[in-house]
């Protein structure tokens, strides 16, 4: 290769950089970056707190939401997006809603959140499990901003965590699966073996076993929140193993529901109502209804009452508050099954029934929750590092 020609182009590239910086320099002053409340550097913002209010999370002009996937994924991110819509309806007049989809669960999330803070956000919803540590890191730099994380089990000075006890409806959908399955073999397609997912697998299995003691749940992990090809292959693998009801803990739920329908087996949904996707095989599912919780969190923060509030902690709510719901039943679900499930749901609402009442035994038969014991939700999450008896499949080590 000729160095001569290279050096010419090389110089023109250098010139190009110069041109670009020039362009940038011209454009920069014209940008609306110097909004009155956009501090140039964080330490300044920490010390020279605006006179309006000193409570963390107040005095902002925006609310930021970060999602790990696209807003229309028929799943986790769609549910969270709808929650952000509810916040927009209620607070959109005074606070701008900033959203970022497909935010990776690594340091890039920090960059996105920093950007939102630059745009005036004093409240940030970090909605995916892996956004927790990035949020904690950003929070350290911005003590005046409140971060709320969806699903985490950590809590720091200005980071709170909220979630719903989705395992309640998951248990009920397990009843539907156990009743409707002909083979007694159920399948669960899971992304990562984290506490939330293990709780769901266990709840689903316990629900199925409550109506069919011989029911088993075969679990496969995809190590990805949303990889449609892997999801499809997982459905086929489970079908080959004799499974006739498939459920999932993934972010995007559509592929699995559709693939199950095509394979002629039944499916139990997750995150959102997928019944239109599977007119034949849809049984029911568990879904989120974040709107009220999100709005209440925002209200608490903008009122300056976040510190010491229930959200300034590891906060969980469930059926009673309406954050989790059972999805509509499919056409194939018979009335007696519906009644059975609705009755069970009522006992949960009344606080008379907790599916994780001991004795709960793990795969090896070891008692993990002693006879008659009920753990509180946070403790239950922390201690669920096992799969219950009747689950086929090993936890990846």
């Amino acid at each position, binding site marked *: *290769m000729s160095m001569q020609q290279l050096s010419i182009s090389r110089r023109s590239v250098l010139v190009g950089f110069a041109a670009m910086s020039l362009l940038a320099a011209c454009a920069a002053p014209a940008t609306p970056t110097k909004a009155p409340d956009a501090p140039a550097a964080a330490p300044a913002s920490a010390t020279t707190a605006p006179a309006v209010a000193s409570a963390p999370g107040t005095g902002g002009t925006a609310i930021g939401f970060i999602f790990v*996937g*696209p807003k*229309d*994924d*028929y799943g986790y991110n*769609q549910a969270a997006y709808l929650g952000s819509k509810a916040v927009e309806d209620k607070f959109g007049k005074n606070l701008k809603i900033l959203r970022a989809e*497909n935010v990776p669960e690594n340091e890039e999330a920090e960059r996105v959140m920093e950007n939102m803070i630059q745009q005036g956000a004093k409240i940030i919803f970090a909605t995916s499990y892996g956004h927790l540590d990035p949020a904690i890191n950003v929070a350290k730099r911005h003590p005046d901003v409140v971060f709320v994380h969806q699903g985490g089990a950590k809590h720091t000075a200005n980071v709170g965590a909220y979630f719903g006890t989705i395992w309640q409806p998951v248990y009920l959908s397990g009843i539907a699966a156990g009743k409707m399955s002909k083979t007694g073999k159920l*399948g669960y397609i899971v992304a990562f073996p984290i506490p939330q997912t293990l709780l769901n697998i266990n709840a689903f299995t316990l629900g199925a076993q409550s109506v069919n003691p011989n029911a088993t749940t*075969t*679990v*496969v*992990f995809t*190590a990805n929140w*949303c*990889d*449609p*090809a*892997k*999801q*499809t*292959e*997982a459905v*086929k*693998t*489970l079908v*080959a*193993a004799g499974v006739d009801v498939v459920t999932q803990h993934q972010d*995007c739920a*559509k*592929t699995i529901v*559709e*693939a199950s329908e*095509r394979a002629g087996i039944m499916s139990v949904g997750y995150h959102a109502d997928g019944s239109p*996707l599977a007119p034949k095989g849809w049984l029911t599912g568990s879904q989120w209804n974040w709107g009220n919780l999100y709005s209440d969190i925002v209200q608490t923060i903008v009122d300056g009452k976040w510190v010491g509030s229930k959200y300034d902690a590891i906060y969980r709510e469930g059926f009673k508050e309406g954050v989790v719901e059972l999805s509509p039943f499919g056409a194939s679900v018979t009335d007696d099954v519906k009644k059975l499930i609705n009755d069970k749901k009522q006992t949960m609402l009344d606080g008379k029934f907790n599916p994780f009442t001991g004795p709960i035994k793990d795969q090896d038969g070891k008692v993990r929750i002693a006879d008659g014991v009920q753990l509180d939700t946070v403790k239950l999450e922390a201690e669920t590092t096992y799969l219950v008896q009747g689950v*086929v*499949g*090993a*936890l*990846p*080590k």
Partner: protein
Amino acid sequence: MLESIIAGAIRAGTPVLFACLGEVIVERAGLVNLGTEGSMLVGALAGFAITAGTGSALLGVIAGALAGLLLSLVFGYLAIQRRANQLATGLAVLTLGNGITAFFGRSFVNQQIHGINPLHIPILSDIPFVGAAFFQQDIMAYLAGIMAVVLWLFLYRTRWGLVLRATGEREEVAYAGGYSPNRVRWAAVAFGGLMAGVGGAYLSVAYTLNWIEGMTAGRGVVAVALVIFASWSPLQAVFASYLFGGAQALQLSLQADGVDASPFLLSMVPYLLTLAVLLVVGRWRRNVMPEGLKAVFGSASARSVA
């Protein structure tokens, strides 16, 4: 269980096989197109979008093929006309495909399509063991297999195949035969893009019936690596692609069986095998690699073979 793994290997291997076959032809012409991944992505999106819009999966696959082809022309222009560095150009084209599909793909995420469904070949599909593995695939999977044979025949039994190989080996030979090496290269690159586009469309229209940003997840770049494993042979590309698919299917099957095997070690198998093949077989079959490629893969290596 074995039959479900074989069936899975074919399913998961088919999209890669399409791209791999296309890249075999590209590399036979003496070029390496890492932009294959980008062609797969635009193929997946175009395939899905057109299927969703028209209701015809056939039109979708054709659209995917065209989209893949169009993107590969960007590579062709830079690599052939401008003689830009091919590896860098390929990566840039990959980036372009990634951006374009992110840009236009968002509104298709929640759409539903009736794509291409598996066939159920009478009698044959009920044969125990082989039935489910070989006779319950969709028509595209068979097409991929047929293409491999057709391309092999093309390469070794037709004059045009000879011209293609000559272009990749020693362009003077093709030139002396009255063929323009650049035209041959253009044709090869376009074909490679087309096949990658079909592979992408297979992912969205036949395999998952869904579109999601970045859904090819590296399969196009894998295809380029598998071409080397396949020693630039269309028939061996079949084996290479199914091996890749098999590693994916095996992970899930083992899990469903309650076996705790590391998916990471399993996934390494195709790449380590490729290195092993290069190391062992490559020593006495060094001439398998098209001469022209040696320039792409580093000018120094061509010299040091002597």
